[in-house]
């Protein structure tokens, strides 16, 4: 089971011409600084029943192109040129009223972030039923049961109960299934899926993509799959369209584009995609400090437990055990990756190690000192030696600070040096993370995601810590930027001997950076071992499941052969 369902496009539709035919599409945004051309002269075809992946990095115009298809662009965007021919009509010229009969009925949308894409104050069933009511496909009486049936088809367990619940009562995966139910409700000919699983865990991602593929196959709907993940595109698509800087740089059958990319940008994208690159044998980072067997570990955690109280009246349990009897050690200069899905307790474990939250029980030893119960000034000294890099570089930098202020804040907090020496240190740190000194006076909003994460890393290193906890440090970044940031982290480790506790749900990323891996599930560590061993010879079934869920299996396995193509399940 590699989870790579593929389908054959019915031959008769293949020659009927395209279901969707985009020609010379240009879209621009009016911004404060002037007109921004987001999409330029894009041609794109989607044939009936086909899956086309639209691949590119953020800012490549792929989402704008997808939204332009249903004219769901932001208010400040305008379609400057081009035709969007769908079912014989040019959608670019339709009025808003005419578009309403196309949207939902003939083109369904699966949006990007399931957490915020459902109306929080309406019941899930109501939101599915709305599509049917809008297009006259059900009456007030028949819509609710029809919605329940659709939720069931989208793979939600116990759909009748889910229909009565509100979005916040459902997990991310369940919400995405509800959104899929909305998209397929009217049996559309085309489904536009805009990064439908980027916000979800890998195993959930795979199940949902499997299901979406299966459902659209059943309905005969075509899919325009927008993704930044070439692995996902490789697994799912019949054809791939690669976009860069608003233009299409390469189009072709998925196999051909991935095996024999003709465009330089496509080649670069392929090289940096962690899920695909993992197929190449990669030299693991240099071994930790020699003789570490003798040296005492930097961090030693024993029988760590964290319980959170539950709100009253939610079942019998009064508490939930987020971290359950966790043992781990981090040596100097080493990277230990903590891997697991959301809710597995990996972030809580990291916060416990940093003493940002107090443990319920257990022991944390930092450099030989028991820090479990440290308070006041002693705890502040620990802060100086253990730092944190957050997942979201857009939220973790104070937007009102200049970059110089951001980087020197830890120095100011510990009253280290004077203004001049702090600025000198900031300059040196920025140089270390490969940012120009001119960045000092800029503000976070003026930087790209990758640059911001570099700033966050510089800030974490300002005090010369022994340990940096990196909580999903590259998850919010584009693949090519991910690769650069990972390289930077490895370089800094080699230069300073800092140890990383690296939290990630992405095994492909972990493989590039970690010396050792600890796999967490439901608060427990199910397996620990050297990175190579975990990837080549996983002992625990859950580890194997995680590994199998990494997208791009079709490419790594050397292409789809008849034997590995599982039958579609019902």
């Amino acid at each position, binding site marked *: 089971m590699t989870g790579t369902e593929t389908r054959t496009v019915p031959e008769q539709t293949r020659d009927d011409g395209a279901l969707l035919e985009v020609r010379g599409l240009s879209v621009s945004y009016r911004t404060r600084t002037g007109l921004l051309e987001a999409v330029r002269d894009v041609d794109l075809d989607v044939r009936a029943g086909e899956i086309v992946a639209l691949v590119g990095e953020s800012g490549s115009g792929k989402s704008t192109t997808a939204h332009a298809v249903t004219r769901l662009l932001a208010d400040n965007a305008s379609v400057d040129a081009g035709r969007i021919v769908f079912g014989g009509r040019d959608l670019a010229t339709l009025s808003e009223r005419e578009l309403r009969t196309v*949207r*939902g009925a003939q083109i369904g*949308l699966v*949006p990007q972030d399931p957490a915020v*894409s*459902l109306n929080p*104050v*309406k019941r899930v069933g109501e939101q599915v039923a*709305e599509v049917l009511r809008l297009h006259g496909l059900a009456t007030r009486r028949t819509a609710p049961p029809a919605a329940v049936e659709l939720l069931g088809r989208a793979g939600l367990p116990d759909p009748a109960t889910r229909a009565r619940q509100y979005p916040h009562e459902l997990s991310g995966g369940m919400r995405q299934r509800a959104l899929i139910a*909305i998209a397929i409700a009217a049996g559309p000919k085309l489904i536009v899926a805009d990064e439908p699983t980027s916000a979800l865990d890998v195993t959930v991602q795979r199940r949902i993509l499997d299901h979406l593929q299966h459902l659209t196959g059943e309905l005969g709907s075509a899919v325009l799959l927008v993704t930044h993940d070439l692995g996902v595109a490789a697994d799912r698509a019949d054809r791939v369209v690669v976009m860069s800087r608003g233009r299409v740089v390469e189009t072709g059958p998925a196999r051909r584009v991935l095996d024999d990319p003709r465009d330089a940008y496509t080649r670069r994208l392929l090289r940096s995609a962690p899920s695909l690159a993992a197929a190449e044998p990669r030299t693991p980072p240099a071994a930790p400090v020699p003789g570490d067997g003798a040296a005492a570990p930097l961090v030693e955690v024993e029988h760590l437990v964290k319980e959170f109280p539950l709100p009253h009246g939610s079942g019998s349990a009064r508490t939930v055990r987020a971290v359950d009897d966790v043992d781990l050690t981090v040596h100097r200069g080493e990277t230990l990756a903590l891997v697991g899905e959301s809710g597995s307790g990996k972030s809580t474990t990291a916060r416990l190690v940093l003493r940002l939250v107090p443990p319920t029980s257990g022991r944390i030893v930092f450099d030989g000192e028991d820090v479990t119960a440290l308070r006041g000034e002693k705890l502040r000294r620990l802060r100086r030696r253990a730092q944190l890099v957050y997942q979201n570089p857009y939220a973790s930098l104070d937007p009102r600070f200049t970059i110089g202020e951001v980087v020197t804040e830890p120095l100011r907090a510990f009253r280290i040096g004077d203004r001049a020496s702090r600025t000198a240190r900031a300059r040196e740190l920025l140089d270390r993370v490969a940012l120009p000194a001119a960045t000092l006076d800029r503000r976070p909003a003026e930087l790209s995601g990758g640059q911001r994460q570099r700033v966050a890393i510089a800030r974490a290193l300002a005090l010369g810590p022994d340990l940096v906890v990196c909580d999903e440090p590259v998850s919010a970044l584009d693949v090519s930027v991910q690769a650069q940031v990972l390289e930077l982290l490895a370089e800094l480790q080699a230069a300073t001997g800092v140890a990383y506790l690296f939290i990630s749900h992405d095994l492909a990323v972990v493989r590039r950076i970690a010396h050792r891996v600890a796999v967490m599930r439901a608060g427990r560590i199910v397996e620990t071992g050297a990175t190579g061993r975990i990837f080549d010879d996983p002992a625990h079934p859950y580890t194997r499941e995680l590994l199998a869920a990494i997208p791009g299996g079709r490419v790594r396995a050397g292409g789809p052969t008849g034997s590995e193509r599982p039958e579609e399940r019902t």
Partner: protein
Amino acid sequence: MRRYVLRRLAQAAGVLWAAYTVSFLVLNRLPSDPVTAMAGVGADQAGVDPAQVARLRAEYGFDRPVLAQYADYLGRALRGDFGDSVATGRSVTSTIGDALPQTLLLAGTAMLLAVAAGGGLALAATYTSRRWLRQALLSLPPLGVSVPAFWAGLMLVEVFSFRLRLFPAFGNEGLRGLVLPALTLAIPTGAIIAQVLAKSLLTALDEPYVATARAKGAGRARIHLRHVLRNASLPALAVIGVLVGQLMANSVVVETVFSRNGLGRVTASAVSTQDLPVVQGVVVFGAFVFVTANLAVDLVYPLLDPRIVVAGDRRWSLA
């Protein structure tokens, strides 16, 4: 749910007690007292018999230690007795009770007008796709907020009473007499509601679930009223809780401008004659209204947004 309400009621009682205590202490620190005011206004106290003043002071209990007065008054206040007005000799409770219906009618009408006009303005401004119209409509609320109530009242009187002779300029008679003062009172209140609601409507319109609704084929009106309004109404609702207090305060000015009887007038004259028991009664009553309004707002929240769970209790809903 019940525990939540009980706890909130206890908090409300605490707020009322604090309002009573603070107002008592502040009013007692004033350099003069009602007896001095009664005996002869101004600094010139010649001709006033000091013995008579002292007797009056003793009669009202102003000569006793502050703490003793406080304990005594608080005990009686708990039984609903806020003492008698120094100016008229009537009980504070009936003074406020008599004035209340007029003010409730005025403030209630003003609030309805404010919600309808402010809400309507916010909806219209965010609904229109004409840029200039949106800008024009959105510039009205700041104007409404910055115009002082007395000035707006005088302008309305000038235009609608003296020029057009549509509505009476003063007095309590009939519904026609209510129009101008209610309008005056509604302007700043409605402006704030419009400002807050428009802002949160615009924010909500940018939420991804709106894109989902558009992708379903929903039209603008449907998205506005069925999807966005309920999500956007929470901040406006929170503000309304606070605005109830502001309405009370503004009614003092408006009732004076329009020479209407009501709580505002009672307050104004009590303050000018230093009628301490009445002032204190008004302060406590104001706190009561404020606390009640905000409790009501908090209880309505979970009905509008299922994500809000009242104090760890199971969700409390209409269903």
